[in-house]
């Protein structure tokens, strides 16, 4: 690995680069530093769970990666290319709209509150972006949407509007909608937090299925410790804008080294 972290404006992607790389990324709101020089590499196909107390910056990581939040310092690399900047004459300059759109095409995101389009059926929700953004024909995007909705177990709800679906069903539509854009990286932002407890399982099952069937890099912010333990290749514990501890789930949940991690896990386990 080349040592790009030290340079102010790295001109080339690191060789053998991971799918996602946070390179000294800083994010702050005024004086409040949410993320402090974050360093995080995620390999292609890797499934990373992000846990931590609220306010630790874990959701911000995903939002920055989806370009929903601008970063204040550092560089985010996706698939070997800088996310919100581009190379011009050997230096990194802010990305233009074209570059941003190309990069966003590699990433899909599922939100805590689903954010389905309320005026469209489940199928139309999945067809909209493939039609308007990818330029697929109506028939092609319909076939794709139908296939994905069947995959998430909603083959019989194609013509239902979001309000006619339960929270778990809505979230599964949201997953299908994101997949319809064929992203390389999927971001899951507390996707079960807004659900009634009995609906959590169906959404997690769909995510398990994606993990087994599709070659996706996944980053998920979650409060489902059991799921993180079983599903993730690596768990990152965020605290105070930094990764406090990370490692394989067995290690992090089994014998955490950091006192903060231990405290957090103890508190979470007590609550459940």
């Amino acid at each position: 690995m080349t040592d790009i972290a030290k340079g102010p404006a790295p001109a080339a992607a690191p060789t053998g680069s991971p799918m996602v790389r946070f390179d000294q990324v800083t994010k702050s709101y005024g004086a409040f530093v949410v993320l402090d020089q974050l360093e995080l590499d995620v390999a292609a196909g890797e499934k990373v769970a992000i846990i931590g107390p609220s306010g630790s910056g874990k959701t911000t990581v995903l939002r920055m990666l989806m370009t929903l939040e601008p970063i204040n310092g550092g560089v985010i690399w996706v698939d070997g290319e800088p996310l919100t900047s581009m190379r011009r004459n050997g230096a990194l300059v802010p990305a233009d709209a074209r570059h941003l759109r190309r990069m966003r095409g590699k990433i899909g995101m599922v939100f805590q509150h689903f954010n389905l389009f309320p005026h469209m059926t489940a199928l139309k929700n999945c067809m909209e972006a493939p039609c308007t953004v990818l330029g697929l024909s109506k028939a092609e995007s319909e076939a794709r949407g139908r296939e994905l909705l069947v995959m998430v177990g909603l083959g019989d709800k194609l013509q239902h509007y979001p309000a006619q679906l339960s929270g778990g069903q809505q979230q599964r539509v949201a997953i299908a909608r994101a997949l319809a854009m064929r992203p390389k990286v999927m971001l899951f932002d507390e996707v079960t937090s807004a659900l009634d407890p009995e609906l959590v399982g169906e959404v997690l099952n769909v995510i398990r299925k994606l993990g087994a069937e599709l070659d996706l890099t996944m980053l998920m912010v979650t409060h489902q410790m059991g799921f993180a333990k079983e599903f993730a290749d690596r768990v990152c514990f965020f605290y105070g804008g930094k990764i406090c501890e990370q490692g394989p789930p067995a290690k992090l949940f089994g014998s955490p080294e950091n006192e903060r991690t231990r405290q957090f896990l103890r508190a979470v386990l007590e609550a459940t």
Partner: protein
Amino acid sequence: MQLRSLTVCAIIAFAAGLIVASFAGFREFLPGLLQGALITVEITLGGCVLSVIAAVIAALAKMYGPWPIRWLAVVYIEIFRGTSALVQLFWLFFVLPRFGLTMEPLTVAILALGLNVGAYGAEVVRGAVAAVPRGQWEATIALNMNRAQALRRIILPQAVVAMIPPWGNLFIELLKATAIVSLITVADLAFRAQEMNATTYRTVEIFSIVLVIYLAMAMLITIGMRRLEGLAAKGLARGRSH
């Protein structure tokens, strides 16, 4: 329920007007006044269409345009909101010809009223667009839509529902404001009324009929907008994410 009572009110008001008119020998005025009312309807319809188009363009330009466009939109909105509709009408009718641009009185009437109401409507559109939840915008970004696609396909269809009630008010304002176009020789309802009054001096009869006709037209707008609101809300409520 409310819609039904409004409809009944409208019918009763119109019927009462007609009865009064025929009983008191008003019949001689009615055909002339209805001819004028037709012109009023024409101006109102044209003005409504123009105002919606102007409002949407001005609102989007003000919210998302590059600075020269945004600046133009602000100038349009402030000028047309900040000066009297009568002055705008006179300016278009009497001043523009000095610069070599002469238009038909009816065209000027539609243009002046449409642009005037459009300036108010721009703020209605802006408010409704801004009220669409932020999560909807975020979803469009995550799906890689550009702003135009997001607005056209996702944001505006949801904003329309919130716009309809205030637009109903604006349309009625527009209808009532059409009375001033009689001052630039357009033979609308108010113009006909003044004309008849000047020759017959039957002020009570004439202006009573005119009152009823305006009221009936305003009621029609109210009923139409209520129905539209019901339809739009039903379409969205079916899909309202909770």
